[in-house]
């Protein structure tokens, strides 16, 4: 009787936890949607802010949408170029569970835990040192730094699961280490996609990293050296306005950001599924 009771309580607690998380998630979506939908319009997505936009006059946040998209694409590409070889190196060049590999993993875990504002401040210092002003380029580098440890660890998580049987099978056919790695990357493709999506979600929504490094502007950046507006900062600036209409637009911007992440996420997954057929 006693054991059954414990079973019942524990099961109940677990269900309650799941329900709580779902409720919070649904509530966030509800708030963003209910407040945002009121101000969401086609104009907001397609036009640039006019002079009085932040006082409640017409205009849109196309500058921030474009800025965020450009930055996340560039930052993800930059980060992947560095993260993939890093994860492969930890698993297939170093001894997978050797001291060097374990300390590398620990280092990336530490980097993972560093608050994004620190990456922003670091990026800012780096830019001052290099003589780069707040720009699309600066923001891209800072965001790439922020998402790199996430990507490395996410790819690493699947790379440790690659059996040594596979690498040995490739070696036994007379392949070199580089040729072996090419086969491994094929095996890791789904994991690389997940890691990329995780990083995109984290990078596109972060305000602190881009605050000092990307700046803010009412126009769409044309060169990497132009300052770039981003959605998280657009939300931040609008939400701090005393005008109610502008505050509602902040929720609309949040809705756009959420929708973008969902579209990218589902889109890439569908594409991967389709390409495998």
């Amino acid at each position, binding site marked *: 009787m006693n054991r059954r009771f414990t079973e019942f309580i524990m099961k109940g607690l677990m269900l309650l936890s799941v329900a709580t998380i779902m409720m919070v998630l649904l509530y966030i979506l509800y708030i963003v949607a209910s407040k945002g939908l009121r101000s969401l319009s086609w104009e907001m997505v397609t036009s640039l802010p006019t002079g009085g936009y932040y006082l409640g006059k017409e205009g849109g946040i196309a500058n921030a949408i474009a800025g965020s998209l450009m930055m996340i694409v560039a930052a993800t590409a930059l980060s992947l170029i560095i993260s993939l070889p890093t994860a492969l190196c930890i698993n297939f060049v170093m001894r997978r569970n050797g001291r060097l590999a374990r300390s590398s993993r620990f280092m990336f875990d530490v980097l993972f835990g560093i608050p994004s504002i620190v990456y922003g401040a670091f990026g800012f210092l780096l830019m001052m040192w290099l003589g780069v002003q707040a720009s699309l380029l600066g923001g891209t580098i800072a965001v790439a730094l922020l998402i790199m440890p996430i990507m490395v660890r996410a790819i690493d998580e699947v790379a440790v699961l690659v059996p040594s*049987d*596979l690498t040995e*099978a*490739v070696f*036994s*056919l*007379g392949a070199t280490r580089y*040729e072996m790695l090419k*086969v491994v990357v094929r095996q890791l493709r789904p994991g690389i996609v997940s890691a990329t999506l995780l990083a995109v979600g984290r990078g596109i929504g972060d305000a602190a990293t881009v605050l000092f490094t990307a700046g803010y502007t009412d126009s769409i950046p044309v060169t990497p050296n132009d300052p770039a507006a981003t959605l998280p900062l657009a939300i931040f600036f609008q939400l701090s306005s005393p005008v109610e209409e502008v505050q509602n637009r902040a929720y609309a911007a949040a809705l756009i950001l959420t929708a973008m992440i969902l579209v990218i996420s589902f889109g890439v997954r569908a594409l991967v599924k389709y390409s495998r057929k």
Partner: protein
Amino acid sequence: MENILFEMNTSVFVDNYKATAPVSCIENAALCIRGLNVAIQGKPILKDVSFDVPPKSITCIIGPSGCGKTTLLRSLNRMHDYTAGMKVTGQVTIDGNDIYAPGVDVAALRRRMGLLAQRPTVLPMSVFGNVAYGPKLYGVKRGELLRAIVERNLKAVGLWEEVHDRLHSPAGILSVGQQQRLCLARALAVQPAIILGDEATSALDPLATRTIEELLLRLKQQLSIVLVTHTLRQARRIADHVVFMYMGEMVESGSAQQVFSNPVHDLTREFVGGSIG
């Protein structure tokens, strides 16, 4: 079909290197092992192992678990090269060339020795891609030639009839038995002189095991096969020569008939009689 050989440098894997110490092996030995010692982090696993692998026959390495069978097999194609702390001394020669001599092209060496692992390990690509992988590494690009190579080797393992209509499906959808035959076809596609099998049938059901055994018996007309096996019955069924290992030492080697019916050593008698192992 035999004339579809693609141009490859099959025999030379050493840069003008000949074994320094002449070793006396049986005539035409496929492999000649002399004084092989393997130790991991100073702990010896193989102690002074010497035997010959006669050409065009099946040599079975038998012995109880943990006696060093797999370690022995893996030292024959230098699979230990990537294991840290592993030290190999002694001689393993093919055609008078020591495979552990400095300057050996390990990739080319491995190509001469197909490996059949315990669990079938297909590469993350199509059925066609698996068989074509090795030849592609060696520069076969012509689609027509690749198709001929794939067809010939799939026929050689009796898989062609079963898979010819799904050559471009992922290899992972095949049954385990089919996958092991695919692995054999993949190994054969690079025209090895020797096939190394590491308990190659232990993951298969009795029927699939029989298919593989029959294949090996057919293949021994063209190449030499070294098989580590757990099951004495398998060794009795297919072995021409037997090497009995015990606690890292080679206790006895000889023709299957001699080892099974008239063993010289007491340990061998106990093992083949079933009282140890």
